[in-house]
């Protein structure tokens, strides 16, 4: 600990920087009116400790409080962040990061020890991080000097950089890590906003960090309100209580578009929406049956009606992903061909499939109802069963895999390993897809460092997932949010879906 102290810069210098920033800040604002940006989101975080959660909602809030070594820019590219640069060793077995100068919200300067402590923490079995496996290739993390960190690997792990750019790669202050600080309730990071308060089921309040290393944010305060009901979100947006809402019902889109004070923003999301087919079940074991079910469903209509628009996909990767092979097309809607294929496969029309839908997601339920109708048209009966989220996770996604069909969205991943890991072996994926060659390719892809070779390997996997069809591929929905028309500079990180308030300001 004493050793680490030696590397700290003098507080006087920090104070000067704060004064400069404050002056610049006041100049930008002109007047002294404090600006608050209020966003309403439908889900809420379980914790604000970025390493103890896997919930998108947690990272959406935590994004403003913490920084990562590298991050995703508006084009989805991974760019430097707390590490102003990094080099990969010749053997791809080490990464060297050079850190920027900045301070945590508690006033301690960022140094290499913080990176060591953070990466050790997420790998520590006692931490029990749901994301620990993404860091398992790391053998040690070494602080060379106060600005340089080397991460040593046991084998090449090209996906690691994506994990470091994701919310769970957030860098925490080493002193607080050592003292067992409760980051879940009192987060401390280097981010553009510092934590003020969190009232569960109500709001998180954040204050602008005038010392932020990329420049102070332009709004003084961000309030994130938790509002599950989309109608209430919309009402709040119209009355000016919220300036951004993250959920817009398909039926309300027109209303927002016709209001000059509001703006509807439609971005491609990172989601791959699917109706998973349990290939372990006799009725669904034949790939021809699964292909037929794909042909039976008009995925564009499902996307439009249940999700407010989107782009169909033909395999297990979001539309627009650089990993999506050019030669894989969506199945298309052809009930005639579906019937023919079912007949060829000897489909038994006496079978009723169990269509299990996750209760908190209204749009998945609506999609499931539409799928039920489409399947009925080709002579496949499905009975809808709505299950609560905890049941879905434990009985359908994991455990006994007790379902025939279920509808879900797989969230964005910066690297294909995150999406495809385990999809070659029956026991490690919920549709029970089994293909030794796919398993082999996935193993190759995880350690292949040549980008084009890697792309080819994953293209093979994705083609096979198209043919084998362990899913009815629905598509990538648009991520629709609405905002006050005079709000500029707010954006949602592609693929990771986290909110970025750094350049947000009112015109």
């Amino acid at each position: 600990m004493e050793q680490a102290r030696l590397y700290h810069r003098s507080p006087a210098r920090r104070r000067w920087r704060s004064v400069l920033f404050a002056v610049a800040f006041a100049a930008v604002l002109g007047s002294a009116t404090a600006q608050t940006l209020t966003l309403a989101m439908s889900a809420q975080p379980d914790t604000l400790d970025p390493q103890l959660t896997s919930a998108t909602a947690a990272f959406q809030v935590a994004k403003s409080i913490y920084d990562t070594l590298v991050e995703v820019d508006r084009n989805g590219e991974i760019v430097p962040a707390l590490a102003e640069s990094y080099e990969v060793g010749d053997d791809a077995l080490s990464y060297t990061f050079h850190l920027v100068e900045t301070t945590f919200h508690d006033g301690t300067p960022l140094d290499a020890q913080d990176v060591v402590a953070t990466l050790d923490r997420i790998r520590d079995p006692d931490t029990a991080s749901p994301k620990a496996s993404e860091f398992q290739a790391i053998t040690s993390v070494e602080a060379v000097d106060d600005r340089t960190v080397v991460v040593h690997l046991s084998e090449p792990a090209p996906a690691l950089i994506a994990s470091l750019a994701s919310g769970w790669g957030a860098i925490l202050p080493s002193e607080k890590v050592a003292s067992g600080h409760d980051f879940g309730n009192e987060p401390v990071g280097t981010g553009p906003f510092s934590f003020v308060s969190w009232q569960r089921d109500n709001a998180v309040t954040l204050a602008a960090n005038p010392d932020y290393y990329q420049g102070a944010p332009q709004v003084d305060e961000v309030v994130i309100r938790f509002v599950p009901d989309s109608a209430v979100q919309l009402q709040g947006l119209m009355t000016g209580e919220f300036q951004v809402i993250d959920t817009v019902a398909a039926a309300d889109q027109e209303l927002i578009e016709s209001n000059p004070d509001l703006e509807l923003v439609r971005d491609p999301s990172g989601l791959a929406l699917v109706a998973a087919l349990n290939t372990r079940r006799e009725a669904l074991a034949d790939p021809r049956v699964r292909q037929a079910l794909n042909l039976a469903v008009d995925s564009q209509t499902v996307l439009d009606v249940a999700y407010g628009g989107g782009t169909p996909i033909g395999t297990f990767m979001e539309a627009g992903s650089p990993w999506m092979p050019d030669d894989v097309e969506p199945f298309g809607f052809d009930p005639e061909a579906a019937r023919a294929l079912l007949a060829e496969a000897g489909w038994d029309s006496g079978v009723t499939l169990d269509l299990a839908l996750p209760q908190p997601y209204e749009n998945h339920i609506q999609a499931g109802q539409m799928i039920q109708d489409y399947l009925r048209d080709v002579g496949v009966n499905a009975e809808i069963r709505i299950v609560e989220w905890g049941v879905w996770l434990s009985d359908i996604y994991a455990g006994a895999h007790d379902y025939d069909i279920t509808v879900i969205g797989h969230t964005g991943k910066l690297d294909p390993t995150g999406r495809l890991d385990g999809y070659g072996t029956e026991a490690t994926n919920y549709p029970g897809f089994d293909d030794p060659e796919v398993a082999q390719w996935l193993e190759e892809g995880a350690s292949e460092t040549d980008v084009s070779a890697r792309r080819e390997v994953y293209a093979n996997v994705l083609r096979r997932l198209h043919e084998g069809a362990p899913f009815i591929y629905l598509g990538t929905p648009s991520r629709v949010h609405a905002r006050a028309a005079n709000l500029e500079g707010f954006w949602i990180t592609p693929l990771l879906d986290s909110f970025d308030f750094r350049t947000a300001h009112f015109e």
Partner: protein
Amino acid sequence: MTRYLLGQAVSFVVTLWVVLTLVFVGMRALPGDAATILGGMDAGAEQIAAIRERLGLAGSWGAQYVGFLGDVVRGDLGDSLRERRPVTAVLLDRLPVTLALASLAFVISLVIGVGLGMLAGLRPGGAVDRFTTLFATAALALPEFWFGFLLILFFAVDLGWFPVIGLPPSGLSWQASWHLLLPAFTLAIPRSAQVARLTRALVLEQRRADYVRTARSKGLTGGAVARHIASNALPGVLPLLALELGGLLTGTIVVEQVFGLPGLGATILGAISARDYPVVQGVTVLAVVVYVGVNWLADLLQLAADPRLRTA
């Protein structure tokens, strides 16, 4: 009196034990646990086992049950699995919101209910009486959340007099009372209808009583007679009020959801879906204590208010 108190204490302990056991078993019988839910779609079996270990869910049900009862006896409700802090801290955070909402609703239903009931009972067949009957029928027939939506639509969206949702981000403060009025009215409407109906019936009964006839024959009029009637009729409303007060806490679950209020109702719903067993158990303990306590208080109040019961 001692026997009465002792009986109450025993029935309280038994009620608490039965309810807690039901909640304990019921929660664990639900598929999935806090570890599965925290792990989400990304964590593998290994990570989920590690999380389960960290949360102390790795032991058998029996061991967990014994540990849990022991803790309750010592007054310890454990730590929230999700929030990683003591359940008592979670409850103390949330209780004020529910308490503020419930007491506001209680006062409103008392004023409206007793007021309307008295007026209706004193002038049966009059305009107020007819209105009260209509109001009571409508209020009891329609679900609570429906009134909530109606109030939001009219007063918050159309008129813009009230905020659409929840508490201000700063939490419970004097400004918050403005936020609490609509949800409190939503809660109070069906309850005031019940109170009004009972009050009306009790007042009508008293009106026919001999002492009223005597009083009138002695020349007493209007206000003085009403005071007599009130002092005899109102203690009869107390048990219902106690029931209402206990029921208010469950009513807040729905209303807090509709209005997005961060009270105990929102807590217990969130805790159930996150399988945060200690929090669900903690809210249950609190609910039993409040329910039993309030009923007991009502009994005592009724004893104090009605001398005839004391000799019984």
